[in-house]
């Protein structure tokens, strides 16, 4: 079973195949992002305001539109068809978001159907610039790029900016914070603890 250990050439082949697989995965992801951009244009402008008014229950300042979880919203035969995608599989906010969307539409007297889809999978890249600002203002550090994220979470590098005082002198306390999507940090200058929204790609 561990014969692979003693045969470096086999390993090399394997790493090449892993590297190839990684490349193809990246390609799939970038295709997914493009698809998302296309989908975004499918949001009926008349419905944008209503969807904008629905916020993430765990981050009230952040609209679900800025969060990037609304994949499409269109009127079909007088019914608004809204498609959303979860941030994390087990995110308890998704059920609430679905309910809140229904409530927001029913207040405007528009019948609505909400559907949850898993593909393409959500990424933190879909958080809009306005969303990132809202996060920072709320006291949550916005996600870094994938490489920097890895270094901040594993390599002890000071890359995450304190959302309170702006200092870069911060330290990770825990890879998982108040929710699965966040890590827990502390600022070494102002001493305030804060959440960092982890990069998800």
């Amino acid at each position, binding site marked *: 079973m561990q014969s692979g250990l003693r045969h470096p050439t086999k390993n090399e082949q394997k790493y090449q195949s892993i590297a190839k697989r990684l490349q193809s995965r990246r390609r799939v992801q970038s295709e997914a992002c493009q698809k998302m951009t296309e989908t975004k244009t499918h949001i009926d402008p008349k419905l944008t305001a209503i969807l904008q008014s629905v916020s993430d229950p765990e981050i009230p300042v952040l609209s679900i539109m800025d969060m990037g979880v609304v994949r499409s919203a269109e009127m079909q035969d007088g019914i608004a068809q809204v498609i959303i995608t979860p941030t994390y599989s087990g995110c308890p906010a998704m059920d609430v978001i679905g309910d809140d969307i229904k409530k927001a539409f029913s207040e405007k007297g528009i019948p609505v159907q909400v559907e949850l889809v898993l593909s393409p999978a959500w990424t933190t890249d879909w958080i809009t610039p306005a969303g990132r600002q809202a996060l920072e203002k709320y006291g949550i550090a916005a996600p870094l790029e994938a490489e920097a994220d890895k270094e901040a979470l594993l390599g002890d590098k000071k890359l995450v900016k304190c959302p309170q005082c702006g200092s870069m002198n911060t330290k990770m306390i*825990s*890879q998982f914070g108040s929710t699965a999507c966040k890590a827990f940090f502390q600022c070494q200058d102002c001493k305030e603890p804060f959440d960092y929204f982890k990069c998800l790609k």
Partner: protein
Amino acid sequence: MNHLVQYIYGIADNALILGQRLGELCGHGPSLETDIALTNISLDLFGQTRSYYQYAAKLKGGDATEDTVAFLRSEREYINVLLVEQPNTNFAYSIARQFLFDAFHLLLLEELQNSNDKTLAAIAKKSIKEVRYHLRFSSDWIKRLGDGTPESHQKIQEAIADLWVYTNELFEQTDADKAMVAQGTGADVTLLRDAYYTQVSQILEEATIAVPNPEYFQKGGKQGIHSEHMGYLLADMQYMQRAYPNMSW
């Protein structure tokens, strides 16, 4: 029984039972940070389980729902591997179990995302992002405990040695597995074995933990033959649905 449904159970039962084990640590973790981390991982696993079971219930039809699949099967009908049902003997065991499973889980999902079944591929693609964090967390702790104090080293070494006998079962194939692999729907776990042991051994060596070389391996879970721990776990997990059928929050 439908091979596809059985194949889905084979993947999802691992996530459910491991999620349940991790959930036991809610409020009981050795420190606040590890408590939160392990229960967050549990939450990810439950989320993934729900996606799989919702799909399986749809395929089964009739009165099946994600809840009946999760809560109303008997012990022999769960086909999770023995590894994930092993108890939280101490923190070292919880971390060792997590690490030995995460490394496999990521390899499996990387294959499953190429499935010709669109739903399974979508669930795999979604889950990979989460499981990558799980593996990062558990690998980090393996290194910390292995390369930590003499006591932490001794405990994690013991946990790895004890749980190692359950690793080979991860690469066993059931009839449903074989049927689904042949159809291009399932991931061939037999092809993941070398990569798994290479990766796991590398991290263990880095953590100064000796890679076990046991004389035998344990198996049975994938055929529904579980260890003595499973009954207690299910009694706890199924209690509410058994005592109050169809109850909901």
